[in-house]
């Protein structure tokens, strides 16, 4: 009887493991393929010989990619955007989450404000009104167009708000008795106690800013001002070979169309920083999210 159950459990465990391993392999494979393509020679790729392992190993694609001014220029834009965007949205998140984490008897209109913030996540004006707002505020083609629309991440506020709520009330009450103002309590007590949540939110903000490409494409008026992912999008998007060929230069361009190795190397370079940052922030990640979700 017991043996049976153990056996049953084991088959179950094996099945679960199998499913999980297959799923993760399926997720991993495209990345491995891109990596293999980026290290292979162009003709091997054109003939479709590359799957998971490089054929005719070469680093030319990486050399070429790293030599491109556009790549570095757009990387600078992305770093700038992350720097400003992270600062702005963390300050906003903390400042908004604190009052909203108070009970209704301390902050009378709390629920009303929470709903106002929540409301904005349900509806959006759509692309054209959004574009017109940015244009009429004269933010087109500036870094602020990439930063300000994402300055108040409501989802992050909700996480931090709940995190603040489960901090022991006694701590803030004793600080209050010692004569601390709300500002002091927030910056000296709450923020130091919330590093796990803040690290998680940092990761969210980083990833959002790093990965956004569409806003760069439509809000920037010059390719020089594109952030990295927008630039990569223009590079990687398969050229439409039905595009009419009008000139000899187009023909030369066509001969290069198999530049999948170059594209792959740039995709990989574009994903690398996040892959490196992730493990360092990951230890906070689970804790931050789980704790934030417990309501007290």
């Amino acid at each position, binding site marked *: 009887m017991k043996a049976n159950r153990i056996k049953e459990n084991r088959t179950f465990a094996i099945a679960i493991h199998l499913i999980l391993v297959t799923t993760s392999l399926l997720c991993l494979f495209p990345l491995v393929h891109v990596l293999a393509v980026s290290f292979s020679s162009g003709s091997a790729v054109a003939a479709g010989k590359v799957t998971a392992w490089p054929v005719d190993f070469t680093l030319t694609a990486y050399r070429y990619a790293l030599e491109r001014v556009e790549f570095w220029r757009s990387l600078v834009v992305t770093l700038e955007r992350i720097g400003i965007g992270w600062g702005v949205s963390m300050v906003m998140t903390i400042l908004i989450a604190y009052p909203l984490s108070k009970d209704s008897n301390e902050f009378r209109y709390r629920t009303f404000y929470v709903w106002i913030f929540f409301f904005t996540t349900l509806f959006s004006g759509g692309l054209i009104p959004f574009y017109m707002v940015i244009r009429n505020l004269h933010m087109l083609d500036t870094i602020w167009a990439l930063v300000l629309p994402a300055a108040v991440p409501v989802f992050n506020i909700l996480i931090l708000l709940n995190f603040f709520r489960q901090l022991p009330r006694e701590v803030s009450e004793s600080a209050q008795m010692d004569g601390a103002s709300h500002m002091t309590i927030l910056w000296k007590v709450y923020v130091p106690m919330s590093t796990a949540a803040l690290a998680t939110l940092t990761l969210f903000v980083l990833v959002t800013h790093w990965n956004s490409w569409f806003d760069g494409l439509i809000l920037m008026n010059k390719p020089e001002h594109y952030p990295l992912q927008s630039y990569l999008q223009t590079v990687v998007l*398969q*050229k439409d070979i039905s595009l009419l060929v009008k000139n000899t*230069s187009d023909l030369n361009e066509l001969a290069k169309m198999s530049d999948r190795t170059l594209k792959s190397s740039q995709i990989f370079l574009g994903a690398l920083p996040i892959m490196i940052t992730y493990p360092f922030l990951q230890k906070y990640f689970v804790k931050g999210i789980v704790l934030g979700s417990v309501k007290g």
Partner: protein
Amino acid sequence: MFKIMAKTTLGSVLVLSLLLSACSKNNNGAPAASGSQATSSESQPAASESASASSPAIDPLGKYDPPIEITTFRSTNETLEANLPAGETLDKNRWLDAFEQDLGIKVKYDWVAKAGDQYDQKINLSLSSGALPDIIPVNVNQLKQLAESDQIEDLTAAFEQYASPLTKELLMQEGDRPFNAAKFNGKLMGIPSIASSRETQNFVWIREDWLKNLGLTPPKTMQDLLKIAEAFTKNDPDQNGKNDTQGLALIKDLTNVGYAVLEGFFNGYHAYPGIFVKDANGKLVYGSTQKEMIAPLTQLHQMYVDGIIDKEFITKDAGKVGEDTVAGKNGMFFGAHWNFAWPIQLVHDANVKADYQAYPIVSIDDKMAMTEVNLATNTYYAVKKGSKNPEAIVKLINMFLEKNYGATNDFNKYYRDTEGHELWSLSPFSALPPNKNIENNIAILDAIKNNDNSKLNPESMSVWDNVMKYKNDKDEANHGWFKAFSENGVGDLMVQYANDNRHIFNEFYGAPGDNMKKYSATLLKFEKEMITKFIVGKEPLSNFDKYVADYNKLGGEAIEKEVNEWSQSLQK
């Protein structure tokens, strides 16, 4: 109760005052409008005065004094950016300097975007948010929208008066099709940025080394071609002892892409899928639903059954089939002239012995096979309503053509320099004469024959250089160019096609009408699905009539009616 009354009266007072202020605004507006009318009527006599003063009237290349400023959009691409001459940028270069110095026109960009989806998206955003620049480069669909919403100027008079004789000649090289497409209610609403329609023509590309291996000769008729395709499949043309080749490469898109497609095959049976052609009564009919399609479809089905066409073609796009071609798994395909650069150069890179050659498409009977072509002009320059100088775009195009092809041309400075910079593309406004490449090809072929490059322009010169790199230095990377410009190479065939006039134009080339907008997405999908089913045999060809009936029911009939009305409106 009293409170409510007070509120409503207050409200109505507010509404009233709003109305009043609106009225007063209107009142203010009216004099302003008439004021501007006055100024324009003042300026009009001034213009006609200046015109009558310098009596040969309007100077197509006259300079604005004081200079004017115009705004526009432009697209860019990687080749362009990688090839900027030293010290020049998209915002500051020889073309913009020339426009400013010679024409007194300062060109400013509202924005610049990479060509492709994002460019179209930005244009649509600008159009729908009403942020129009002075000169708007648009496609025919957008042109129609702008014309119907009365946001752009009528350019009929501006073009008539200001276009130089050279401009008129070059833009009309292909007839008045590009202009008809830009006409709404008889008014010219955009200047076509013309391109060569004939270059959408198809050839048949065959592995010549395989022909030799099997002792076959190039096809003269469709029957020959079918035999070759069969031999390529069954007789081990690559002599590797394995049955691993297919006769005819085909992509899942079936048509339109210009590589491994079927237009050339259907054309050999005098069927013209995807385009509108005149029937015996002079009525426009849609090629894909005509009975001429049955014979080639029957043949294609047979080829599919025999394994001459890849059994998995319905899952393969051009990139994927390209991989097969490069790997030497198929030996023949229908495609455009540019296939020699892609994928054929790659085939040669992968296997030096592999040798593709282009041939004219062949016919099933004694009637010559005609290749179907579409209007290639896809950009029109429209001018925002209320622009002070709607003729500026005509002058800009005059200048573009004059500097490149006119009597005073400075080709090396403005079109292409000896280092290979594509200087013409620095200009945001362009038009490429449709016969340009044919003329270049004739000159290059002549030069190669006589071994004398003295008469070549720099564009042809670069081709000459590529050919010579192979001929003299055996540079395999230029094998494609060498083949294209040897005798009966594809460069030569382009000239032969032109001389024989082997083109059937799509007789519908205007902006899509309401019915077409409404139904064509569904219909195109239905058509492709059915043709694919006929080829793989999921649907027997005895059902062809049913397919046609369904097609017409789904909106095909409405579109045909609309297209014929459009065609008749042209003849008025």
